[in-house]
């Protein structure tokens, strides 16, 4: 019951029906690609993401300065359009005189690493448990369901904070802790799809040919779930990025001086009444990244999940 609502909250169930298209005769992949070409949200999201990914990947070459280099005489410079801004520091400098643009570019790296890392960890946990629960059923299914109920009842942010504090603050810890608390959507979707696929003829055929349960689960059932899992993966990347920013903002995420956007907002907060751009810029970066990922996720859902399968 609760899990179904949670899924609805995520907007995973398609809200807009895909238009009928005459893609008869095309392979499913080609048909999806054809639909993707006329999907504006998907194209915009993908475009923004590609640009940000290029900045993140090639940060050492694209960033004008070293993001860790302190230059105290040049501290708190406004962006170039502000009063006293300098072309050398396009977006100004922070309280230690570090170039803000460079820190923002390196921050994209942190956000993307954590988003993809945490979503992968969650995917491994959720899909494994979902396959087990859906394919084996019985007491295993009930045990997994109980685990979901418990996970949903815990205030996840509080749990993440406590875990990070206890284990220690680092990028790896943040990835694993966020991943370990965000697997419910994967599980619910994998489980219900597995339940449905289990009854299909091709699974019965594989069984008759002597495949083990494990082989069937991995080789027959899993490939049929790829589309849905991919959609959840994108949306979970966005959730993980926002979670990391919140954690770092509260001081329980990425440790200083690593340029995390959440941490930059926390540092900028001290001076936000006089130099609001210190808070505004990393927030806009976060917003743009997350909205691009969500547009991509919604788009992928629209073009691949053609009917209400769940």
């Amino acid at each position, binding site marked *: *019951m*609760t899990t179904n*609502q*949670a899924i*609805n*909250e995520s*907007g995973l*169930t398609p*809200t807009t029906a895909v238009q009928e298209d005459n893609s008869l005769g095309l392979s499913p992949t080609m048909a999806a690609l054809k639909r993707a070409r006329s999907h504006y949200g998907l194209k915009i999201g993908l475009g923004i993401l590609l640009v940000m990914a290029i900045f993140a990947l090639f940060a050492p070459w694209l960033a004008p300065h070293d993001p860790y280099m302190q230059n105290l005489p040049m501290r708190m410079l406004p962006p170039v359009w502000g009063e006293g801004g300098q072309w050398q520091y396009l977006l100004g400098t922070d309280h230690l005189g570090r170039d803000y643009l460079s820190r923002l570019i390196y921050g994209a790296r942190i956000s993307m690493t954590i988003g993809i890392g945490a979503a992968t960890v969650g995917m491994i946990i959720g899909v494994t448990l979902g396959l087990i629960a859906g394919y084996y059923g019985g007491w295993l299914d009930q045990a997994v369901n*109980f685990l979901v*109920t*418990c996970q*949903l*009842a*815990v*205030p*996840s*942010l*509080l*749990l993440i*904070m*406590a*875990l990070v*504090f*206890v*284990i220690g603050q680092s990028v790896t810890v943040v990835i694993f802790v966020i991943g370990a608390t965000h697997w419910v959507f994967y599980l619910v979707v994998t489980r219900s799809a597995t339940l449905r696929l289990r009854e299909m003829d091709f699974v019965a055929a594989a069984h008759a040919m002597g495949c083990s349960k494990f082989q069937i689960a991995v080789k027959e059932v899993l490939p049929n779930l790829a589309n849905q899992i991919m959609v959840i993966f994108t949306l979970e990347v*966005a959730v993980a990025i*926002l979670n990391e*920013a*919140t954690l770092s*903002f*509260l*001081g*329980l995420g990425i440790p200083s001086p690593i340029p995390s956007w*959440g941490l930059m*907002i926390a540092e900028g*907060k001290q001076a*936000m*009444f006089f130099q*609001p751009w210190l*808070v*505004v810029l990393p*927030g806009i970066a*976060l*917003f743009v990244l*997350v*909205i691009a990922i*969500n*547009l991509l996720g*919604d788009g992928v859902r629209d073009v691949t999940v053609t009917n209400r399968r769940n």
Partner: protein
Amino acid sequence: MLTFILRRGLMAILVALTVSFGTFALFHYATDPAQTIAGEDAPQEMVDEIRKQYGFDRPAAVQYFDWLGSALTGDFGESYFWKQPVVQLIVDHAPVTITLALASLCVTVLIALPLGISAALKPNSWVDRFALSTAVSAQAIPNFWLGLMLIILLAVTFPIFPVSGDATWRHFVLPSLVLGASSVPAVMRLTRTGLLDVLSSDYIRTARAKGFTGYRLIVQQAMRNALLPIVSVLAVQLGNKLGGSVVTESVFSMNGLGRLAVESIFNSDIPTVQSLILIFVLTFVLLTLAADLINAWLDPRIRMG
């Protein structure tokens, strides 16, 4: 109906117990409470003395049931950091969080329901597009950042509301907006899809054919059924708001349970953290239980099934 309540109630208790044991185990194996109480650089003898005095040398299971037994009688132990009973701390901090959670729930309902309903009434119109893009944007805005932007805009540039604190009702306006906005996308989407589903059903077509329009059609006929899932999601969202208060209260420096939780974590104040997590979980479980019961009461199919 009775077996339904009993079954759900039992599940709720089981969940609360499992979660509280999990939290206990986590802190038990990862931190040394004796060291925390004694201080970072206390001599080893003193740490050992405290360990004995507080009973930290006993087996983990014994300590857990000892703590649980006291917790059930309303004794949550003594805070290591604030040096006062945890119950007192919770009683002192709860009003702010409860007020904030309820006020933000009102904000959510007041924004999400009208938006969702108008979007469902005219699907694919500009209202619908506006509502959906609001949901997409609201989902992507970091909640704490929205708080800071509202402070810059409505407390500093245009000093309408106070920057931080929790003294008067004016202090609650901005935090409630921030916390309320976080649940708008979920509730709005659900209202929209729920109402769309209902509107395409046969009985609404019949009602339309009989001449029902406007308010009577939407509110008296359609909303009744569309409300079912909204009741559950609102309960879940109210539970989430308790967790969300962690961030909002920190941004606006409000003395509620969320900020208490953050500070307790920073100070390794295990009894407080543990009690707060237990209380949050219990509240969440009770809220979902209440929502399930309301739904079962509204919809006979659930309580029979």
